[in-house]
């Protein structure tokens, strides 16, 4: 299950999506999620799905990376779908739409994280939310927290995997038995991972202090964000997609 986590995993590349400014992709994600939930008919559902398939093809990210994060949501969805079908009159239709939308949301999120470095996402958030500085919101700190959190995910995942292997060698069983039994086996593991996360965070805070984090009111940037022509084209596509979906929804299609 740990290897299914896609958050913070960037897949290097030079595709159109990789080249886009992170702000463009950060705008695309909520717009796509809104559109996915606007779809109510087979036609709109297919349009939303085709848009996503086209973007996945444009990203040039291998499908095994793209679909990696789907297993865990699908297990939860399966339980929800069974309950829907058993308890609701229109359960089958609701289940199909719910499953489709959640898959679309997960894949769209994967598109963002697999084609954008965590630092770029943070820089995009910082620049995009910079207007909040007027209200004294510590936007730079929030963006740094996001970047550090993204960076820690693969490290802590690997550490949890190593710990599981070490405990398995000493007789622990994380794969068999009831859900409760497996959850109990994970208890001591999570305590160790949390303790390690705090220790790492402490050391990183010292390293950041030593390199003067927070000392400048206007920290610089090695690669300042700049919109290009490709971003303009992408914004036009995003707006057109949103308009089409709204029109189809209001038109009853």
């Amino acid at each position, binding site marked *: 299950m740990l290897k299914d986590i896609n958050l913070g995993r*960037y897949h290097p590349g030079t595709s159109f999506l990789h080249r886009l400014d992170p702000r463009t992709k950060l705008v695309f994600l909520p717009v796509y999620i809104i559109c996915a939930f606007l779809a109510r008919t087979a036609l709109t559902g297919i349009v939303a799905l085709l848009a996503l398939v086209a973007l996945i093809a444009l990203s040039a990210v291998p499908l095994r990376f793209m679909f990696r994060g789907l297993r865990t949501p699908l297990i939860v969805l399966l339980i929800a779908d069974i309950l829907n079908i058993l308890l609701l009159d229109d359960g089958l239709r609701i289940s199909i739409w719910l499953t489709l939308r959640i898959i679309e949301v997960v894949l769209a999120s994967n598109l963002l994280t697999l084609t954008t*470095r*965590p*630092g770029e996402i943070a820089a995009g958030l910082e620049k995009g939310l910079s207007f909040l500085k007027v209200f004294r919101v510590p936007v730079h700190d929030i963006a740094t927290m996001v*970047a*550090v959190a*993204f*960076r820690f995910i*693969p*490290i802590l995942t690997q550490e949890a995997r190593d710990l599981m292997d070490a405990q398995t060698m000493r007789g622990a069983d994380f794969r068999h038995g009831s859900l409760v039994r497996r959850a109990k086996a994970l208890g001591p593991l999570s305590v160790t991972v949390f303790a390690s996360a705090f220790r*790492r965070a402490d*050391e*990183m805070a*010292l*390293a*950041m*202090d*030593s*390199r*003067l*984090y*927070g*000392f*400048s*009111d*206007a*920290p*610089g*940037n*090695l*690669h*300042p964000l700049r919109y290009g022509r490709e971003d303009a084209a992408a914004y036009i596509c995003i707006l057109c997609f949103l308009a089409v979906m709204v029109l189809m929804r209001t038109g009853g299609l």
Partner: protein
Amino acid sequence: MISLRGVRFRYPDNPEGNAALSGIDLDIADGAFLAVLGASGSGKSTLAGILDALLIPTDGTVSVDGLVIDSAARPSREQLMRVRSTVGMVFQNPVNQIIGDTVEQDVAFGPANLGLDHAEIVRRTDAALHTMGLEELRLRNPVHLSGGQMQRLAIAGALAMGTRYVVLDESLSMLDPQGRDEVLANLGRLNSEEGLGIVMISHDVRDCAGCGRFIVLDKGRIAMEGCADDLSAMKDELRALGVRTC
């Protein structure tokens, strides 16, 4: 020149216990290569924190290139900025000190925090990458580097801030022999060719290749000091103080 006079440090969460450092007097000249040896708990990392102004002495004074950090007054933001951009620090665990998601972004983290303009950040980053031989790795994810490359990256990050001294706090202890040799060779070159002052903190004499002078800490005090040439003749005394000698 870095000078410590009567430096004493006691951790706030241990007010009744022994002081981590007691009455340390120490001078580190420009371009010096000093080894600070000692067993675990002897006060080595506390001394490293004092040198980089991450810790402020409970008593005594620290002077870095004439800028005095006094135990009596809380240092100003400008003072801390000057000390930390003069004395860089490299920590033990290479993974936990990486902040950027590419090698070049990590090196640029310090200069960016200094509020420098874009051209200057680029210049300093390029120069530090060149000095540490990391140019070809500049777009790599630092997490995928070897231990030796990660510590070279950490040194590059310190150099990009314009530091004139680098303190390495047990920075070689997690490296394999190849990584250790790689970092030591780079440090030796930086010290002899660029005049970079180096403070190598370790519990292992093998990490001190190339140093000119050494001190040994024991229970927060300087228990021994001398020239690097004397180290081989002092094996028994060093072992008695918890220092690894072979």
